[in-house]
């Protein structure tokens, strides 16, 4: 859609002068005001903007927290308690960042499942999708390191368990895994040194995410948005300019999302966390159950479902990396699952699978949970590797609407002059 001709007109002399030298105003106008958005988008399309908001919230609260936080094994736990009790509005900023991380993942998972349901990963949006997968990986790395910073029991033992996973590489080249683990730790065990470097990386990675988000949005603005019908924009009545149409909807989505955010932050700040993290890290006492934050639980279940340690690690990383390949694994001719009578069922079964894996990830690794986890893990991978290629071939899609306009107004719709006129930004 960047091929859409720019019709930005500088209105002031300074604007004209700047436009000839550094056309930032033109960029903003073309990409955020006049940018064509399909007129049939539903509220699931507001989550991209919500995610951008989440990133900004995490950056601002994180930078303020870092002004008071002390990344040392002795003082980290005390400094967070100090922030909550004594720093002005620390009681607000600290849960905003901690709850914010959960909300960020909630929004990212909704955004991702939206893409999965409506086939937003299919051509021409492969790069856009793959950038999304890199973003979620970077988010996971950031969240994992961020979770170590309070230096509570769960912080300490989660770092120990997860970094130790690399030692499984010893079964490929003896000594290699151990060497990597000690390199990550900066010593022979998890210590204040490890915490210090994790803090450094936790501060760095969000800016990497911001860079990836810029590429993500760039790619989106080259290929244009998908939509619930999975159709391309064909005529002028199919789209509306981003401002005020998409923007007015995005802000509704954002404020509704902030309501949920605020509910957890003000009334349930501890609910999504783990009580053991209010006990200071102690290398000599292992908690009876070591569990990650809720947004990692499905992956933790997959890790533990595989009997071999190395196999578990490979399965866990593959469970995300497999997403990179789905633009080519999905053989369907239409994008949106709305018109895919068979795939739809498998999709919802996949959603249930992810929730079930999350539930099992929180339970101890014993029977019968392990067997359940194995079944669901098998379905998790089968969904991408077997069902996506096969169902796309055998299924006959339902009849698609003739155009995006018809999707909104019904067959024969969109011929009316009013809709067409309103859609053309230059006639506003």
């Amino acid at each position, binding site marked *: 859609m960047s091929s859409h001709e720019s019709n930005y007109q500088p209105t002031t002399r300074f604007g004209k002068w700047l436009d000839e030298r550094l056309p930032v105003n033109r960029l903003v106008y073309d990409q955020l005001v006049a940018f064509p958005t399909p007129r049939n988008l539903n509220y699931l399309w507001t989550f991209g903007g919500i995610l951008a908001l989440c990133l900004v919230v995490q950056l601002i609260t994180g930078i303020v927290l870092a002004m008071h936080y002390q990344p040392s094994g002795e003082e980290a736990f005390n400094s967070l308690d100090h922030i909550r009790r004594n720093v002005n509005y620390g009681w607000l900023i600290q849960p905003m960042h901690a709850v914010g991380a959960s909300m960020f993942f909630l929004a990212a998972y909704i955004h991702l499942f939206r893409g999965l349901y409506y086939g937003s990963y299919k051509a021409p949006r492969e790069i856009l999708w793959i950038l999304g997968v890199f973003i979620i990986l970077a988010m996971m790395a950031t969240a994992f390191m961020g979770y170590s910073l309070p230096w509570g029991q769960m912080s300490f033992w989660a770092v120990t368990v997860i970094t130790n996973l690399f030692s499984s590489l010893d079964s490929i080249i003896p000594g290699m895994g151990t060497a990597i683990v000690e390199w990550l730790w900066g010593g022979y065990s998890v210590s204040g040194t490890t915490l210090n470097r994790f803090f450094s990386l936790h501060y760095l990675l969000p800016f990497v995410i911001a860079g990836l988000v810029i590429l993500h949005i760039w790619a989106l603005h080259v290929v244009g948005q998908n939509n619930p019908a999975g159709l391309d924009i064909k005529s002028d009545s199919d789209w509306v300019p981003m401002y005020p149409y998409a923007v007015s*909807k995005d802000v509704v989505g954002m404020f509704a999302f902030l*309501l949920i955010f*605020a509910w957890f932050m*003000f*009334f349930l700040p501890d*609910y999504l966390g783990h009580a053991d993290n209010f*006990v200071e890290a102690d290398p000599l006492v292992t908690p009876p159950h070591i569990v990650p934050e809720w947004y990692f639980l499905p992956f933790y279940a997959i890790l533990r479902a595989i009997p071999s340690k190395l196999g578990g690690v490979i399965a866990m990383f593959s469970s995300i990396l497999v997403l990179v390949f789905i633009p080519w694994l999905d053989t369907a001719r239409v994008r949106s699952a709305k018109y895919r009578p068979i795939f739809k069922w498998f999709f919802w*079964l996949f959603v249930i699978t992810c929730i079930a894996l999350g539930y099992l990830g929180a339970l101890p690794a014993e029977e019968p949970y392990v067997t359940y986890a194995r079944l669901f893990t098998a379905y998790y991978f089968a969904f991408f590797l077997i069902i996506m290629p096969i169902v796309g071939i055998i299924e006959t899609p339902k009849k698609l609407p003739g155009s995006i306009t018809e999707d909104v107004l019904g067959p024969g719709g969109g011929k009316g002059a009013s809709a067409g006129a309103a859609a053309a930004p230059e006639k506003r």
Partner: protein
Amino acid sequence: MTKTLAKSLGLVAVVAIAGSLTLAPASFAAGGEQPHIEHQRWPFSGIFGQYDSAQLQRGFRVYKEVCSACHGLKRVAFRSLSEPGGPQFSEDSVKALAAEWPNQITDGPNDEGEMFDRAPRPSDPILGPYKNDKAARAAQNGALPPDLSLITRARNTHNDAWFPVHFYLMAKDVFTGYQEGGANYLYALLTGYHEPPEGFTVNEGMNYNAAFPGHQIAMPNVLDGGPVDYSDGQEGYNGPASSLEQNAKDVSAFLSWAADPTLNTRKQIGWQVMLYLLITTILLYAGKRRIWAKFH
């Protein structure tokens, strides 16, 4: 053809889900070694909950007269006992309290280069009797009485229900804004000293406790009989009478405040923010409807 295929697949899915629902209860019941702990209603629980300063004052007395013999409260400063949203003792009584506190602050070095002990000031932390963990263990037969500043946030109860019930209970807590698992545990612990069931052997120096994981705890039944007489030394006292349950409840409330002293402000500001967000969302939605009106 695809339609029948879709239908039969749907059937498979429904059967699979129903199957796992019916299979699960037996297996989930088997895993429950964690003691079941009841939800309590607290003045501060739920979305409208606020601390009751009279209860926090009683709770502080229980802490001072019983728990402080073994446990510290090192993250809580004396002065916060007089701050809003807490027990709200008068500043003078807090000053006097600090000056009389038996556990001294180690300060220094002085001009001679020596460390010295002095009486606490209101800005100092509420210390327990032991200078360090080693000293505590030496005095307590090897057991460590933990600092209680964060104890209610550092403990929680387990939800072992069968999974549909589990999700229902989770949703109930989320919608009512209930996260008082730590206080529930503490109350269950303090009231959980019973005769051990038959066949259960309690080790030397340990006590049977229904709520404590493993059921053997080094801490004795310190609230037996409700040792803190609330009416004592208080003219015109008309609050609840002392009992094991009442002492346990009050000290659990007090320690909840100690761990989360900003709860009152948080929930008050929370409601202002929620209201603002709700109204703004509705206005924005109305605006969006107007902007989009010509498209429907």
